[in-house]
């Protein structure tokens, strides 16, 4: 299951891989590139400004996403940045999505890793960048308390005032 994956280990391996990937990605995967191009275009043309994403550099396989904290929640008016890394097999396997902005949330650990079913075993090729970001945005206001990565956040969730204080303390704009 999702929470059984060791987050730190995952992070290391992806860091190590990154450099070779940059080269490899640019040459092959025409279909994937095309799909990502198309997703970018839809995203740019969409009127919804609460979520957004853009390739980080020259590499189309690494994006930076931005989520505005949903209204009427403790996250309101906060802006969360995420990194998205697309595998070669995208969209048949899920991208690796992490918070860059520190986020105090039951399903987000201190490394920014997110526990969200659609990014793990419930992934489907029908999801795209926009739906991922919207799902994460939805996760912010409706955490899954039953399987927390951050147990303190899970405990505090019930007392929203205290929780809000933690959220504000953790939040640091990057």
């Amino acid at each position, binding site marked *: 299951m999702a929470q059984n994956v060791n987050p730190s280990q995952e992070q290391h391996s992806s860091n190590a891989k990154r450099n070779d990937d940059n080269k490899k990605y640019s040459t092959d995967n025409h279909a994937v590139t095309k799909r990502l191009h198309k997703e970018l275009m839809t995203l740019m043309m969409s009127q919804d400004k609460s979520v957004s994403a853009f390739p980080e550099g*020259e590499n189309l396989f690494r994006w930076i996403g*931005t989520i505005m904290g949903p209204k009427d929640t403790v996250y309101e008016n906060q802006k969360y940045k995420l990194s998205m890394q697309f595998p070669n097999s995208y969209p048949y396997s899920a991208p690796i999505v992490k918070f860059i902005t520190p986020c105090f949330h039951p399903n987000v650990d201190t490394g920014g890793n997110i526990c969200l079913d659609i990014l793990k075993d419930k992934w489907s090729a029908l999801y795209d960048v926009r739906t991922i970001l919207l799902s994460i945005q939805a996760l912010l206001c409706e955490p899954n308390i039953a399987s927390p990565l951050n147990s303190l956040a899970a405990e505090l969730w019930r007392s929203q005032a205290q929780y809000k204080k933690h959220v504000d303390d953790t939040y640091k704009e990057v």
Partner: protein
Amino acid sequence: MYEIYTKVRINQLFGIIIEYPDSIPALQDLKTCLPKTDLRSHLTRKLQKSMETRLLHTGVSTPDILTAYVATIRSMRVLDPSGLLLGVITQPIHQYLRRRDDTVRCVVSSLTEDGPSDLADELIKGEALQTDENTPSDDEETNWENWMPDPVDADPNKPLASNRRTSDIISMLVNVYGSRELFVNEYRTLLADRLLTSLTCDTEKEIRYLELLKLRFGDSQLHYCEVMLKDIVDSKRITQNIKQDLSLDGETDIPISSMILSAQFWPAFKEEKCELHPNVNEQMKKYTTCFETLKGNRTLCWKKHLGLVDLDIELPDRTINFYSVTPIHATIILHFQDKCQWNLDELSRVMQVPPTVLRRKIGFWESQYLIVQTSQDVFQLVEKSEKDNLDVPREIIIEDESESAMASTQDQREEELQTFWSYVTGMLMNLDSLPLERIHQVLKMFAFQGPTTECSLQELKHFLDRKVREHQLVYSNGFYKLPKL
């Protein structure tokens, strides 16, 4: 003797060129003389100078320059089949033409217009040349080209290949003015205009031209135009079909024909708002229903401000026919049919057209003595024509009717920039702040695709600076970023 004669001829050369083809003998003479004298450079200098003083200034219209250009190419071919002179002499013309904005439009329209035109001839001839490529030297077209070996890239085995280089005026023109894409886009706009302004469009002829152009530019570039022509043919058929259906279910007092266009393939239209007369709207609704039943899950999206209306206006004392007025004009007069007197504001509300535009449009009917302005911003229908009224010349500004239905290049550009803008905001939202070069680079990588042409660094800077002035962007230390919410 030769020398004196040549000098005289050279001084007259500009006139000789303009008179082409009547001046062929003179050119032949000159051709004989040139090798015997050493006046080639003199000729080039002289001719370039007279070109500059007589042709390449703002007082000469672009079509005239083009005609002269074609004549120059042709006469230079007689004079010097190697194409060397031609290259040198046409240089200033190229440079000058490049500076004029209407050149491409002129070339395209002269290529395709009805009347006899050099370029159109050239287009057809070009086809002949291409088809004859494999069976050389049988007709006169190729004969004169074969009369001398090409001294520059002397390759006697391929005379036709080098001939084509010097003979293909159109490709010369096109290459001079920039990209083929530019040319094809212009053609597309013109074609669209022509197709839409004449209801009885001769698609056969257009298809022929398109085929000719295709030989030159390749299928892929002109694919859009092909779809456009097909749209027109299809629309005629569908309209016929729908008309039959409509006449079955009863009386139609306003017959409608439509042009059904595939929006994807047509150039962008000028957008304008205009609410038509309720009667017409109702007819359109019926028409749409018919179309929907005919075409399954497709529907129509009307461009109400485009189109043509034929009107018969019956007045107590006369009937006037108007052909091909614009929908907005027709709507105005239809509204006056319901009510004799309208206030400008009132009418503008009903039609959802801004008063200033409306006033201009009413001007048309004023010029026809059908509507008069009785007091400030109040207009009245003239039921009876008063004779003396007709004689008084009135100063009414009649708007330019030859407006193009296509969005102007500037409007289109604006739209493209708008697309870039959404990319720029997306970029800056996620990547915070970026310098101009980086934004341009990223746009180049991700946004410049499809039919949109590129955007130069300079233009982008201009655009972004405008956004800064509009407070949609913040610029500091060489970096652009989005303003804080």
